């Protein structure tokens, strides 16, 4: 069922019995498409404290080798918690209006 979610909708005969949704489907399902603010990261300022990673409610802070590695924009909903918890002396994340990126076609 997992990878069919976005492509093909199952009929009642092929659905699992009884409102069962297989685990891990949120990974396939792009839930970040209604975001109105996008987090933008400044590599220069970031100290890799990873407080943003701890606080992100959607596991959208990507980490590699113990360091900040980017945002999962397929799932980030733009809540701004990462920008808010980034220490005041660092301020490595800012929230930018999605329309700015639309203009640029990103």
């Amino acid at each position, binding site marked *: 069922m997992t990878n069919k979610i976005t492509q093909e*909708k*199952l*009929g*009642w*005969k092929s*659905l*699992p*019995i*009884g*409102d*069962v*949704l*297989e*685990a891990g*489907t949120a990974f396939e399902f792009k839930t970040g498409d209604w975001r109105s603010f996008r987090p933008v990261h400044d590599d220069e300022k970031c100290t890799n404290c990873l407080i943003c990673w701890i606080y992100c409610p959607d596991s959208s802070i990507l980490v590699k080798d113990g360091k900040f590695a980017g945002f999962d924009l397929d799932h980030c909903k733009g809540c701004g918690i990462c920008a808010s918890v980034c220490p005041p002396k660092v301020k490595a994340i800012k929230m930018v209006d999605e329309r700015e990126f639309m203009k640029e076609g990103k």
Partner: protein
Amino acid sequence: MGQITIAKTGNEAMAEAMRQINPDVVAAYPITPSTEVVQIFSQFVSDGLVDTEFVAVESEHSAMSATIGAAAAGARAMTVTASQGLALMYEMLYIAAGLRLPIVLPEVNRALSSPINIHCDHSDTMGARDTGWIQIYCENSQEAYDSILQAIRISEHPQVLLPAIVSDDGFIISHCMETIQILDDEEVKNYIGTYRPQRYLLDFAHPYTLGAIDLQDYYFEHRRQLAEAVKDAKQVIVEIGKEFGQKFGREYGLFVLYQMEDAEVCIVVMGSTAGTARAAVNQLRAKGKKVGMLKLRVFRPFPFGELAEVLSKISAVGIMDRSDGNKGLGGPLFDEIRSALYDSEKRPLTVNYIYGLGGRDITVEQIEDIFQNLLNYAQRGRVDSLVNYVGVRE
């Protein structure tokens, strides 16, 4: 293969079936007239006669919620209730069915308020008739005991996976002592088998989400699936009833026919009134009147085709509802039977008799009068009064 004959009230018989089933979880709240089932069962728990985790909850809504949670986790879970208790479970009943959890609920039929009343009628379970639960109505303690055991097998059957209500009549059966035959503990254990759900939430190796939101894109498909499951359950109920007969000598089906072979008119009844009706049939048969009775056992799934086949051969059918539909045209059983007969080539005259609300007694004489009424209608070929209230003061 020993069965013992023992005196039990309906409530004791239900509790005994539950002791032998030994469910993993029972979450229940006492309510008249089913209180004793919970009380006796909780004594079994205290005495260490069952391994059940008994959850004493604060309401029936919580009872059904906890039972649903336990069943979803993978437990064989049961609860017990009556009347207002079942009404308070209402929203959770739909959830149990929608999640396809095989919960078995022994229920004791009692009138719904208002006015407040503790005695028998079928308005409580009739209020839950479209929830997706299987419904089995029992005439006596023996049927209640046997049907609860069968319900475990029916509900947990991989082609069914639906919750089931097994009910008997409040006080008339629940508090009336009669001799019944009970099976050996070991035999029940083997008969119901170990519960092995295909999917359960505590199966950490195969995680999944249960009961996620379904909007315009999937809700309809899930409800369609449920509708099909309820329809298909009929075949499994028949098979399991037959197998029970082969194993233990008491066969069960969707309904029971009494003196129907050459009957000119008949009545359709559910629950304990079948005993009274049988006496009325015997009295009239002794006078040469061709009367019969159909005792309906399985109300959900409703055996439309099977009933139509039998009833279409009758001239006039009296449909006895122990609850009122409060809709301007008789009771729920009346609706279903008339619907079942609509496509028959030959349709009998149908008459609705609403009786016994709030535990009002129904007598052999009253049922004889109903038969006489039906015989007159059959002779004249028309019905004067479609919906009738039996035994109510004008």
